[in-house]
């Protein structure tokens, strides 16, 4: 029925878990729809990783080896992927919706004049046709998307599928990638975040406030007192930091800190995917929001539809009373 090309990603010298999740999706689609699975592994020193991926769901793997591929760069990655698409004739190209994936995948789709569906959490075959599921309106609604045309590029949300757990056999073939001089994009460096403030990943209890808290002064007035009463730390969602109400080190989410406390209380947080990624594996989640349809309630254990300005101060008082 066709060929699926997985664009795998290397991070810290290993194949990213998200790539094994793509393998899992590809192998399921292959079994259901008769696809052949191929993969691309591009980087520096990839031979052993390519062998590994061929055995763990990657199928036949193209190994693109070049110093310039060692760190992600939009131009070099684009060329490597185009070379793999040309070599494989793939009709379905899968990437993870990681910072590299979302940077290069749309360019590949435009260059191929292909259908492109980003940030999917589920892919199904219905009557031989691909159906993609993704969220819109910052996580509030699910969308069912279909594609047409001979070629489709899809990016998949990391963590949406389980990593491939079986074993496969595939051969590794070197792939030559033309990387001419005069590149107009150049990788310079990765800057690690300086750790400032409380390390939220070590807090047992986190009380986070979102846009619903309404104003910067309400954080020390309303949210911090509850965190203090519980002996926990205060956190925030992205819009709070974007607005300059709190510094970046309070941010919980995919581009801030990923936390797993024993108790996570979210007040006035809608629950956009980027935030959920940062806290959904918390042991116990309590959400307070005036919007009954807020996506946060999908990951919460306990939910309250109500006014945080009534509930949180009353809760703080009750906690202090309980502690005597």
């Amino acid at each position, binding site marked *: 029925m066709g060929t699926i090309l997985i664009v795998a990603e290397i991070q810290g010298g290993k194949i990213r878990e998200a790539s094994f999740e793509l393998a899992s999706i590809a192998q399921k689609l292959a079994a259901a729809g008769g696809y052949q699975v191929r993969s691309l592994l591009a980087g520096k020193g990839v031979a052993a990783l390519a062998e590994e991926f061929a055995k763990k769901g990657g199928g036949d793997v193209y190994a693109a080896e070049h110093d310039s591929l060692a760190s992600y760069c939009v131009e070099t990655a684009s060329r490597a992927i185009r070379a793999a698409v040309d070599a494989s004739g793939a009709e379905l190209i899968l990437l993870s919706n990681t*910072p590299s994936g979302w940077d290069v995948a749309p360019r590949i789709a435009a260059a191929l004049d292909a259908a*492109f569906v980003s940030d999917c959490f589920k892919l199904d075959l219905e009557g031989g046709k691909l159906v993609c599921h993704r969220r819109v309106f910052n996580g509030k*609604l699910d969308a069912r998307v279909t594609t047409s045309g001979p070629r489709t590029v899809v990016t998949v949300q990391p963590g949406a599928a389980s990593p491939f757990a079986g074993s496969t056999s595939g051969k590794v073939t070197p792939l030559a990638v033309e990387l001419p001089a005069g590149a107009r994009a150049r990788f310079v460096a990765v800057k690690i975040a300086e750790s400032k403030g409380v390390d939220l990943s070590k807090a047992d209890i986190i009380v986070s406030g979102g846009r619903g808290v309404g104003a910067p002064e309400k954080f020390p007035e309303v949210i911090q007192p509850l965190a203090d009463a519980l002996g926990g730390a205060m956190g925030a969602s992205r819009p709070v930091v974007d607005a300059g109400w709190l510094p970046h080190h309070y941010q919980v989410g995919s581009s801030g800190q990923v936390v797993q406390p024993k108790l996570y209380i979210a007040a006035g947080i809608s629950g956009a995917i980027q935030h959920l990624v940062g806290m959904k594996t918390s042991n116990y989640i309590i959400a307070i929001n005036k919007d009954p349809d807020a996506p946060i309630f*999908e*990951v919460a254990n306990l939910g309250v539809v109500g006014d945080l300005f009534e509930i949180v101060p009353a809760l703080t008082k009750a906690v202090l009373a309980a502690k005597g």
Partner: protein
Amino acid sequence: MKILVCLKQVPHQDARLDVRPDGGWIQEDTIKFEINSYDTYALEEALRVKDATQAEVVVVSIGPERVTQALRTALGMGADRAIHVKDPAVDGSDPLGIAKVLAAIAKAENPDLIFTGFMSDDGNFASVPPMLAELVGIPSATAAVQVERKNGTLSVSREIEGGAQEVVELTAPCLVAVQTGINQVRYASLKGIMAAKKKPLDLKTVADLGLSGQVGAGAAKIKVEKIAPPSKGSGAEMLTGSTDQIVSGIVSKIKELGLL
């Protein structure tokens, strides 16, 4: 120097999201619209370059009559000129179709820099900006949290995971898709709003851009067939009642967890 800023008008972030009876999108007739949050940061980034260098800032947006308001707001904030692609033939375009429209504008304008938002608050596709760059043949960087200009190159810090940043250098002309929070967005001054009324706002159609038959629903390769509220998983236990009852319920739970 010329900077092109692409803006999208989207439902206001607090708008009621009622799904249309056919399930194809939300009801848009009765809600308020605003400039996509990510795009306001892109416009601000362009205006800061203009403050420093006297660049010309051109804003472009695609959509029905209501889009004029978004463009006038942008002009009020300091943009010099606006282009409104107003044509029902664009309706139903997929991101690639939108990118083709913007690419036609970009090829005519030949900007040194294109600033866009990273994604839209409604579709969240994050697809148009890199597609636009590919079609125009220029390098791009997405999720930018810092942009520094240095003589024909742009040093862009891209937000990656865990609070880290990836620094990439792009040779102009190039495109940058910015993350929210990259700057603090200015308000339009009263003087700016008055001046905006006299600034040029040009209308374009699909035919003007030579794209007849290449955009719109007929050309789209992806179709959002149905949107619906997500099926709730095992779901949260919802506490109701008076504030006292709710607080009492929460305190019990925290005690059960051994944390109080």
